[in-house]
């Protein structure tokens, strides 16, 4: 009898231990967050488009506002909630193009920040390539 009770108790414990292990809690993606010093570049700025790069394994969002174009780029990772999707992982860069005349090809300033908000040094060729890429992004289509 005693043994029976013990085995029943073990089963109940085991069943409870397994319950809802699959359920995910309402986690917030902390790794993808922008450093405090750069948040104002995206908060209340207008979403323009999104982009990805297959070879680099990155995904980005482009914002426009205050004469700036701001491209936020993350490394991507498999979505733990959906087999079949990738989502932003750690932040890689925040690039800012400042143009005195919105919509014009004239760029006054290019800045690239790392995930800590530190300004990164880049050679001028890389800079020109990035300015060209960011300027080439067209707004997403909305009906």
């Amino acid at each position, binding site marked *: 009898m005693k043994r029976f009770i013990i085995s029943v108790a073990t089963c109940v414990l085991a069943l409870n231990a397994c319950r809802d292990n699959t359920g995910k809690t*309402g986690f917030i993606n902390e790794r993808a967050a922008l450093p405090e010093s750069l948040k104002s570049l995206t908060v209340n700025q207008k979403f323009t488009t999104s982009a990805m790069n297959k070879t680099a394994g990155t995904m980005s969002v482009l914002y426009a506002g205050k004469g700036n174009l701001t491209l936020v780029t993350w490394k991507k990772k498999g979505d733990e*909630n959906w087999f*079949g*999707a990738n989502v932003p992982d750690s932040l890689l860069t925040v690039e800012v193009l400042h143009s005195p005349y919105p919509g014009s090809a004239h760029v006054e300033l290019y800045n690239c920040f790392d995930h800590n908000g530190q300004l990164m040094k880049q050679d001028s060729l890389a800079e020109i390539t990035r300015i060209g*890429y960011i300027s080439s992004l067209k707004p997403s289509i909305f009906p």
Partner: protein
Amino acid sequence: MNQTKNRSRTYLLRISSVLAVLLIAMQLYHPAINNSKADAEIQAPPEIKAILKNACYDCHSNTTDLRWYDQIAPVYWQVAAHVQTGRKALNFSQWQNMPSADQKAKLWESVNQIIAGAMPLKSYTIIHRQAVLTPAELTVLKAYVSSLAAKSKPGDTSKLKVADNQLKPKKKDLAQKKLPVEMNGIAYLPDYKNWQVISTTDRFDNGTMRVIFGNDIAVKAVKENRTNPWPDGTIFAKVAWDQLEDAKGNITPGAFKQVEYMIKDHQKYASTNGWGFARFKTENLIPYGKTALFAAECINCHRPMKDADFVFTQPIRN
């Protein structure tokens, strides 16, 4: 002493006969589970079909195979109810009646329901142990659906054409038209484009890229860590576009595919777990579904996320 023993024995006997009669009476109510035609059955490699047959067909096909112990009420009543709702939600016997894109989407959803432990139903696998997928079977299924994933090719001219068409000026722009309304009464909310980005996804399962916008209440909830449950008034808008790839592996959004909303109101939408669902498809924003019952499909798919207030998206810390 002997007398008490005798008395309790008669008592037990009486109870068991009442129970026996009850059990027999229960068998009289036996709603039929009809196995009907399976002429549009899923076409898949034999190893895939074997897994689905073994784990899913009892509830999701027209060829339910009841064991003797399934036939006894009250167990039978639960079985019959599961088969009825299961077939309605997903039916491998009528698979080919769905458009090919929907067939693929339902297979991806199936794999995700299995990974989440939501399917096959727990109440079923307790008795039918053989239906639990082995890790090897799950790997085989994952590889199979991955082989069905949308294949993007650089400079896909047909996709480019659809996007270009959407960019052409329209005779009547949306502002002049009446806003479309979903079957459950939720109207299209045009302002979502000005909301904050909550996250973005690369849906390589169906070749789309998505952005999830949140209204002010959603953004504030993220800031204050109040996302489980999300507060009433929260609205998400998830937009999907085609993926356009160039020769360098750069991917940008092409044609607009759809926008989906989730609106939190725990009282108004109590019957759908506190969320009002809506989906508007194509640039013409055609409401999804034929009746208000379309939301059952939304809820079935979101149910494995019940511990995260039914939301798949992990918002980015703001």
